[in-house]
């Protein structure tokens, strides 16, 4: 036991002496959370718009005003003809062109009908779709206000946004960031630290020492459990204090589930290091096999439900997806264990699977 303690102390010194790595390990959650919280919003503000308004009458001016004061749009320029639009789009700044038909107010008065054309630069389809939605919404609202005195029957929608009243993006990102950072530290760092010993040849020294293989692995892994756990706490605290992301459920349960996820990631890291001998390969495997799925196939950035079915199947094979579901459920919806037991069982299963595989793969003797 004393030997083992000594070994753990050695591992900690390894990590703490490498201040660059430490700086990044603890700086990363903070910087990324700030990025997600302040910089990355999917909500669109001040999209540049070009307006072609040949009649310049009271109604078109009123509509333009409504559009420009909505906060979604900012006037880039007024157009003199429709044919300019293509060139303007090609320059790349203007996302949308609003075209009123000539004699707009007059037509509206006489026939009760007038036409607006919205041209969107759909080389970015997501933004284009959102902007067109916003713009038609603004026109519809204008119509409602004009017609309200004349209409006899109207259904009024009452919208309630559950769990996240202000539609903050950071609510989605905190769980995702936790999953990503814990995976990075637990799986990537451990696999690198074990393969490094192999690459430098010091693994052999450890293997001939009186420490048992299991002790070596546990000793290598233990400091990273510690680091990962601290990082998780940093993200949770910052998210809560700076961005007001609530923790509605039990904190204890949340931390327990995080520990489970960390051990799953660690066993994955051990598995990776047991099948490769070089850090470069371990890193590439981790990047392709871990980071990509954690970011993209977990519902972190892109909702799983919208993907094609084959992708959804893939998503269900990715452990981070279950973890993200669990913490969203506990943190944001305030659910108890009864709501997440299925996902917990899946995580347990993955942990067991990876451990069993790596024990089978682990060699006491290094291949020559």
């Amino acid at each position, binding site marked *: 036991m004393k030997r083992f303690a000594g070994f753990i102390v050695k591992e900690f010194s390894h990590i703490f002496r*490498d201040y660059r*790595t430490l700086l*990044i390990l603890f700086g990363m959650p903070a*910087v990324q959370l700030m990025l997600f919280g*302040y*910089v990355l919003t*999917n*909500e669109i503000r*001040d999209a*540049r718009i070009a307006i072609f308004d040949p009649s310049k009458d009271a109604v078109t001016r009123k509509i333009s005003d409504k559009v420009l004061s909505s906060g979604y749009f900012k006037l880039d320029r007024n157009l003199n003809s429709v044919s300019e639009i293509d060139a303007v789009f*090609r*320059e790349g700044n203007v996302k949308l062109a609003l075209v009123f038909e000539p004699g707009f107010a007059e037509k*509206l008065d006489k026939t*009760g009908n007038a036409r607006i054309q919205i*041209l*969107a*630069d*759909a*080389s*970015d*389809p*997501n*933004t*284009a779709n*959102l902007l067109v939605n916003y713009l*038609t*919404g603004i*026109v*519809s609202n204008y*119509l409602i206000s004009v*017609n309200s005195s004349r*209409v*006899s*029957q*109207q*259904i*009024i*929608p*009452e*919208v*309630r*946004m*559950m*769990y*996240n009243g*202000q*539609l903050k993006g950071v*609510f989605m990102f905190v769980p995702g960031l936790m999953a990503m950072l814990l995976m990075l530290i637990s799986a990537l760092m451990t696999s*690198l630290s074990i393969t490094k010993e192999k690459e*430098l040849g010091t693994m052999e020294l450890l293997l001939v020492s009186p420490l048992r293989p299991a002790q070596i692995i546990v000793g290598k892994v233990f400091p990273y459990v510690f680091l990962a756990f601290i990082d998780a706490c940093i993200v949770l605290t910052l998210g809560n204090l700076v961005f007001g992301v609530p923790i509605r459920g039990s904190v204890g349960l949340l931390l327990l589930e995080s520990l489970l996820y960390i051990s799953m990631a660690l066993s994955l890291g051990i598995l990776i290091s047991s099948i490769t001998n070089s850090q*470069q390969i371990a*890193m*590439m495997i981790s990047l392709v096999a871990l980071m*990509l799925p954690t970011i*993209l*196939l977990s519902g972190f*950035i*892109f909702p799983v439900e*919208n993907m094609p079915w084959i992708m959804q199947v893939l998503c269900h094979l990715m452990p981070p997806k279950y973890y993200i579901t669990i913490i969203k459920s506990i943190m944001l919806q305030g*659910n108890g264990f009864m709501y997440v037991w299925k996902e917990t069982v899946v995580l347990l299963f993955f942990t067991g699977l990876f451990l069993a595989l790596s024990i089978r793969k682990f060699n006491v003797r290094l291949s020559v």
Partner: protein
Amino acid sequence: MRTILYIIQKEFLQIFRNRSMLPIIFVVPLVQLLILVNAATYEMKHIRVAVVDLDLSGTSRRLVSKFQGSPFYRVQSAGFSYDQARDGMQRGENDMILHIPAGFEKSLVKDGSARVQFVVNAINGQSAGLINAYSTRILLDYNRQLVMENPAEAAVAGIRNIQTEYSFWYNPKLNYKTYMVPGILVLLVTIIGLLLSGMNIVREKEIGTIEQINVTPIVKIQFIAGKLIPFWIIGLFELAFGLTLGKLLFDIPMEGNLWLIFLSASVYLLVILSFGLLVSTVTYTQQQAMLVSFFFMVVFILMSGLFTSIESMPAWAQHLDRLNPLMYFIRIMRMVLLKGSGFADISPHFRALVIYAVASLGLAIARYRKVS
């Protein structure tokens, strides 16, 4: 010059003797394109709705059928208990509850207005915004339909109508894939360039072989050129390979001049490779190099406009983004491939890349020391 050629030869030998290198060069782009492009979609389909219709009148049933008829919605369950539907949302089984209170039709006829409730799961703020927009649009259409069903009344009342028509240029079907592919190719070139070049020198440091090179008469410039050129070639090859895959698998449009793409790519790769070189001069182990590159890469990628639009970032972040080489190259790729922009259109971005390349290459050369 001959010395450089020898170093390049040595590097290529080293790269290709590593058995895992070829899969990385060929499989990574394929996997990335297939997974990223298919996964990265914001399109909303199949919004799961739980209907709680407590009115069960003709009007309310028709409203529900409007939702059923829309391609965006899938009615998951229908019941008479709001609490049950709320519990379903708590368990994550539905995204929205359409709650029609009792006496809905009556109050519509009697008072001229009635209320329905949309309860939206807003954990994902963006989806919630879209769900709200779609639902409101359905309701507005229905409102208009209710009015128009009585045209005489509508004409008498002098109802105004503005028709909005919209068209989506360059991508009329709103195919998200064609938008993602160019950006993902940039990601691919970046990852390969940054990681391979960054790792390469650090590895020599860690194993100690850098000393052997340092004692040879090879001068600094030769060494750096010898290290950079192989990865520069591999990077350009990756881009060509990725473009081919994109064309074959996703039929991405190539409106503009491909030479323009490769011209920008060759400058961009210089930026990325010298950045990797810079990382390798300030770190001592591969683990460190990996973490440092990973850290910058994630920040660069997230701020590059690949997944979220740059226009919606706060002004200070947009200014900061001028330091982000990825942002320029992604813009160039998208502009040239999707819209067919010419050199004049991309020249501000191209100029920024050139400046960046000169600066980072200079810095990397200045930082590299033969004596450790």
